[in-house]
């Protein structure tokens, strides 16, 4: 059970998905925050830049703005970077000249 945000300061512990641009640029040649993601839980389609990113945590956790479920997780270890996209059905990227 997750109680919706009640306006207390702790509920503003997240940033918008633009915070993912720098960390994800270590992995991808394209800017992933320009993609559109589809939430595997509720089906909501929204720009990655609109996800809610919780960064005061052992890794980055990006949650759906609609249902608060996890869409993307990223953990930066000393030797390895882990990226978990199981919460995204797909990412759709705008292509130049298409």
């Amino acid at each position: 059970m997750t109680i919706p945000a009640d306006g207390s300061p702790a509920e503003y512990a997240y940033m918008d998905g633009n915070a993912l641009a720098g960390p994800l640029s270590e992995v991808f040649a394209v800017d992933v925050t320009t993609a559109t993601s589809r939430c595997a839980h509720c089906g909501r389609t929204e720009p990655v830049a609109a996800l809610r990113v919780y960064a005061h945590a052992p890794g980055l956790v990006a949650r759906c703005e609609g249902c608060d479920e996890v869409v993307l997780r990223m953990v930066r270890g000393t030797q390895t970077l882990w990226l978990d996209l199981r919460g995204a059905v797909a990412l759709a990227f705008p292509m130049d000249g298409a």
Partner: protein
Amino acid sequence: MPIVSRGFHGRRPTDDRKLPPGQFETFDFPVLSAGPTPRVAQEDWELDVTTEDGARHSWDWAAFTALPMETPTVDLHCVTRWSKFGTEWQGVSLDVLLGDVETAAEFALVHAYGGYTTNLPLEDLLDGQAWIVHRYDGEDLAPEHGGPARLLVPHLYLWKSAKWVRRIELRLDDEPGFWESAGYHDYGDPWREQRYQGD
């Protein structure tokens, strides 16, 4: 001869013997969270222990708070490198909660309100090593720190001490939890600096 001053910072020096490798001491209590803070009223709170046979043992708030209490004072070690010494809690030992539970399980997957999970060997919950705590520093545990009640397993990194604990699932096999399935170590011993998979 140079004069060496330790300065006057009003803080006791860090006791390196209590500090695991790669950690620093902090004096506040940082709040880390992988999602929105669940707000669960005490009257709505429930704790379940489930076994591999499907048996379920449940406590509501009144039943939980009627159990024998302990007041552990423990050091906390977060994988984000802060450690906090001498934290004072009140809660129920897992030895009490699991005392009447018949199981052949070797692992536990802990579920929290809000969907967080973490896994650990069942033996790490027993023998005076773990508690379900509902009070911190003489006060009811604040939601930001896992209230109404959280798991406390101080000998492992703090991500194992699940906030907002809802259910302890006893399992025959080891199922990775939220951080363990995203690169963090399956066991998480701070003294062996088991932060990430492969450490």
